[in-house]
C-alpha cells in the first residue's frame, strides 16, 4: 500500500513535525534559496546531474568573480529532500572560494540541515555533484575561452 504514510505528526495539529523532515529542511523546501537560473552572460560555470534511479534532476549555475562564487542558482526536479539539500548547498557555496566550494561534501549539507532521513541521503549527493560539474565547467571555460 502506498497508504501508510510515515507521518509522525502530532494528532490534529498542522504545525507539528512534518513527515520525517525537520524544521530547517522544511524551511529550505518551502523557501528554497537561490532558485532560478543565471543569464548566459552571467554564467561562468554550469552543471546538470540526474539520478536515473529516482528520476531526480538538478541544474546549477555559478558566476565566479575573483576566484569566489559570487552568484549561484539552481533548479531541481525532485522530492523535498532533493529541493532542500540543493537549496542548502547553494547557501553554503555562495561567497566561497572555488577551492572551498570544491571541498563541500554531502555530509556538510546534511549537517547544515540538521540531518535528513537515511532514505533521503542520496538526494544530498545531487547538489554536490552538480556543483562539482559547474566548477569543472568553469575550469574548462577558463582554459578554452
Amino acid at each position, binding site marked *: 500500500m502506498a497508504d501508510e504514510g510515515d*507521518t509522525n505528526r502530532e494528532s490534529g495539529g*498542522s504545525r507539528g513535525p*512534518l513527515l520525517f523532515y525537520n524544521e530547517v529542511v522544511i524551511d529550505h523546501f518551502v523557501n528554497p534559496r537561490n532558485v532560478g537560473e543565471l543569464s548566459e552572460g552571467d554564467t561562468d560555470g554550469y552543471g546538470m546531474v540526474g539520478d536515473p534511479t529516482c*528520476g531526480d534532476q538538478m541544474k546549477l549555475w555559478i558566476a565566479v568573480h575573483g576566484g569566489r562564487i559570487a552568484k549561484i542558482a539552481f533548479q531541481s*526536479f525532485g*522530492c523535498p529532500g*532533493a529541493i532542500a539539500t540543493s537549496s542548502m548547498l547553494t547557501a553554503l557555496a555562495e561567497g566561497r572560494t572555488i577551492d572551498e566550494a570544491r571541498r563541500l561534501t554531502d555530509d556538510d549539507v546534511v549537517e547544515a540541515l540538521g540531518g535528513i532521513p537515511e532514505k533521503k541521503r542520496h538526494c544530498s549527493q545531487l547538489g554536490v555533484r552538480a556543483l562539482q560539474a559547474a566548477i569543472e565547467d568553469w575550469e574548462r571555460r577558463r582554459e578554452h575561452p
Partner: protein
Amino acid sequence: MIYLDHNATTPLDPLAFEAMVPFLRERWGNPSSPYRFGAQARLAVEQARQRIADLSGCTRGEVVFCSGGTEADNLALRGVVLALKTKGNHVVTTSIEHHAVLNTCRALEKEGCRVTYLPVSEEGVVEMAALAGSLCDETILVTVMHANNETGVVQPVEEIAAITRRRGIVFHTDAVQSAGKLPRRIAELGADLVTFSGHKLYGPKGAAALYVRENTPLAAITTGGPHERGLRAGTENVAAIVGFAAAAALAFENAETEGRRLRALRDRLELQVSSAVPGVKINGEGAPRVPNTSSLSFRDIDGESIVLGLDVEGICASTGSACSTGDPEPSHVLRAMGLSPREAQGSIRLSLGRETCQEDVDTTVRTLTSTVARLRRISSVRGPA
C-alpha cells in the same frame, strides 16, 4: 486539518466506538472460555458475524474474521494454494494489485507456484482477453482486486467470476477499497473469496473479514486453536470485530447516498484542478471508479513534494508512488497503465470521505494550484518526458 486520505484509513465512526467500549471495559472475557462471562464475548462476536453476513448477502458460516486486509489476502491466496496443491500450481493476478496480494504472489513464486501478472489498459482496467487466455488446466486461483487503491478504478469482477465459475477455478477479490463505498453486497460480486476491512469503512483497525463461499477449498495457513472454523487460529479481537460490524452496517446502508455526495465533490475537485492547472492528467478518468478517489499526475514535478507542500498547509494527501516511503520505484499501478516513470513520479492521490465538504475541496484546489505553480518554478524540467 483537511483529511483527504480515506483510502489509507478512515476516522472511527462514533457509533462504532460506542459499540466497542463495553468490550474494552467490562466484557473483556475470552469468547472461547467455558463460563457465562466468556459466553458474553462469544455472543458479541457471533452477532457481529451475523450482521456482516446479512450485509454481505451470505450465511454466518461464510464469514471468517481476520486481523486486517493483508491477513485476509494471505489466507485467501496461500489457503487456496495449500488446499489445491495436488490439483495445480498456477495463479493468475494483475499487475496493479495491492502489495498484500502482489508480494504474497511473489512469495508463492519462490515456493513453487507459477504466477501470471495480467496487464491493464491505459484506463487501469484488467484486459479480459489476456485473463481468459492465461487460464490453463493447472490454474487453481484467480485473484483480481475490486477497486484499485491508487486510482479507484473498478475491475469487472462479475465478468471474471462468470469465467472462473465455468472453468471451476477459485476466484478471490480484494474488495478493501470498494466495500462500503459501492452499493454492492459482498456475495453478489460473484467471487468465491472476498477480502474487506474495518478501518477503511469507519471501523477500527485490527478487524477484517474474508468471505468464503460455501465449499470453497481453503486450508488454514496458521496453526493453533480451532477459532474461525479452524481457518484462523487465535483469540478473536472482540471489540474491533464489534466495531467493524457496527461501522459496516452504517457504511453499506448509506453507500448509495454517500456515494452520490462524494462523486459530486470528487468531480468538482477534478474539474476545478483541470481548469486551474495546466499539465495535469486524471488517471483512470474514463473507467468506472469508486466515487471518492482521484489520482492526479502533474507534469514536471515530484508527487512527494506536492504532498509535503499540502501537508505544510494542513492538507493530508498521499503520493501515487511509493517514493514517499523512500522506495525509489514509482507506482507500479500507474506504470502498468503506461505512465512514464517521470509521470508516475508526479502523481498524488486524493481520497475523500464522510467529513469532506465542498469548502474542503475548494480550499484544496486553491492550495494545490499554488503548490504546483511554486514547485514548477523550482523545477529543472519542462514538458513531457
